[in-house]
């Protein structure tokens, strides 16, 4: 649920009283037409607040927490669990780690790429799912389970759902916001190197199984895409 325009105007006035909307858009990189449209519709996207907060040198989390629907974000958050941290490591980085452990010294291990990655949303939900999470999120927010799944498949999750998912899983609320790319790890207050430390703490067996699961999921996605591509080509060949 995006933020009410009235509350947004109020917030903007309190954090940047002297600046015009044009100035705000210029420094934050939010397109003027985009923001104007959001204001006209009465719903401002969370990402606009995040961009403006960054431009003003404020922590985006504090910016979001000024709004009623995100009031819970203020105050110290529970730190991410090791599983959440590992879920935000890209599959290729996990594979690099597997190689580095099985053939040490063969290739230098590159530094982990920053979150989010191509499947970070689904991997995050899988990392915190006790088997019943999707039903609890669906019961708490009213979203149909298949719509929730569709968002995960598209590697998307609205900020509101991300927070609701964290809440339903009883984990810190920053994980979902990082996984969806709304805020960075640093903005979430994750210590630098936290993901690398979580990765290093995995045993060889755990790491290999995890990398295998990721590869299998990737393989399924690629196979499906190839099938759909072949189907599309067939349609074009016959009817295009």
């Amino acid at each position: 649920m995006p933020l009410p325009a009235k509350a947004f105007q109020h917030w903007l006035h309190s954090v940047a009283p002297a600046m015009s909307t044009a100035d705000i858009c210029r420094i934050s990189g939010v397109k003027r037409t985009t923001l104007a449209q959001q204001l006209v519709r009465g719903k401002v996207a969370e990402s606009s607040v995040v961009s403006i907060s960054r431009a003003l040198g404020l922590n985006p989390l504090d910016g979001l927490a000024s709004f009623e629907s995100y009031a819970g974000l203020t105050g110290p958050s529970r730190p991410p669990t090791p599983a959440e941290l590992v879920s935000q490591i890209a599959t290729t980085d996990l594979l690099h780690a597997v190689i580095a452990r099985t053939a040490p010294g063969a290739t230098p291990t590159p530094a982990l790429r920053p979150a989010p990655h191509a499947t970070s949303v689904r991997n995050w939900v899988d990392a915190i799912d006790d088997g019943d999470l999707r039903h609890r999120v669906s019961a708490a927010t009213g979203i149909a389970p298949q719509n929730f799944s569709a968002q995960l498949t598209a590697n998307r999750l609205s900020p509101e759902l991300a927070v609701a998912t964290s809440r339903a899983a009883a984990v810190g609320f920053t994980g979902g916001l990082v996984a969806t790319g709304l805020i960075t790890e640093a903005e979430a207050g994750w210590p630098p190197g936290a993901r690398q430390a979580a990765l290093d703490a995995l045993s060889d067996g755990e790491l290999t199984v995890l990398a295998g699961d990721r590869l299998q999921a990737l393989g399924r996605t690629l196979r499906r895409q190839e099938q759909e591509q072949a189907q599309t080509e067939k349609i074009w060949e016959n009817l295009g």
Partner: protein
Amino acid sequence: MIEILQWSTLAVCGALAAARIPSARRGENRLLFGILLLMTLAILLSMRAPYVAIDQVLGGRNLANLILRFIIFGAILLVGIRVARAFGASRALKLITGRAGAVALAVAGVAVIVTFLFMDTAGSSAGLVAVAAKDARNAALVEYYGAAGRLYPSYVALVLLPATIGVLRSRLPALIRSAALLLAVGAVAIALSLLFPVIPPELGILRFIVNYTAVLCYVLGLALIWIAKLRAHPSPRNRRPDPAATAPD
């Protein structure tokens, strides 16, 4: 109302056929061009003024109407084969090109010809309205003739419907799914034409709406697929020549 529907359908069909002339000259999917041409011709023959003009040339015995039936059969057969192949519907393809399809086509074709021969067809009249008005026997024959003419298109449309709905519900690109939706609506419209005998005469306009909806949906559905293809693969004319392809060997 009916005139507007007829002329706009003709315009859409003709424009799309014309738009495909360049690609057809390059040899790309000429059959699709042929299908559009057949559909344009069919619409032309279903309109009063062109129908009478053409039928007069053919001797004024409503032979044009019989030709129209077979143009429709041909167009629907070609569309059916192509759609079934495109959507990977091997069962539908078998039902169209296999024994069942051949029997359906033969039964419909023979029934159309036989009823036509028994009619007193003198005097060009679009939709055989004047023929039906002659007497009760001719009226009944025109009714059977029309039913036989709708039988085969409805058969093909119903055979294609499951595969079309399958594509509609798939995760293929949005343009292709929109095209599948149009094809599905067209197929339902053709199938609904089987119910024409129970439509009361005062609602006769419904027949026209259903017929032209079917044609428009099919033609626009095919156009959408073409647009999707052009977007994904720009035609060779607009593509920069590939040096490897033109290099002498």
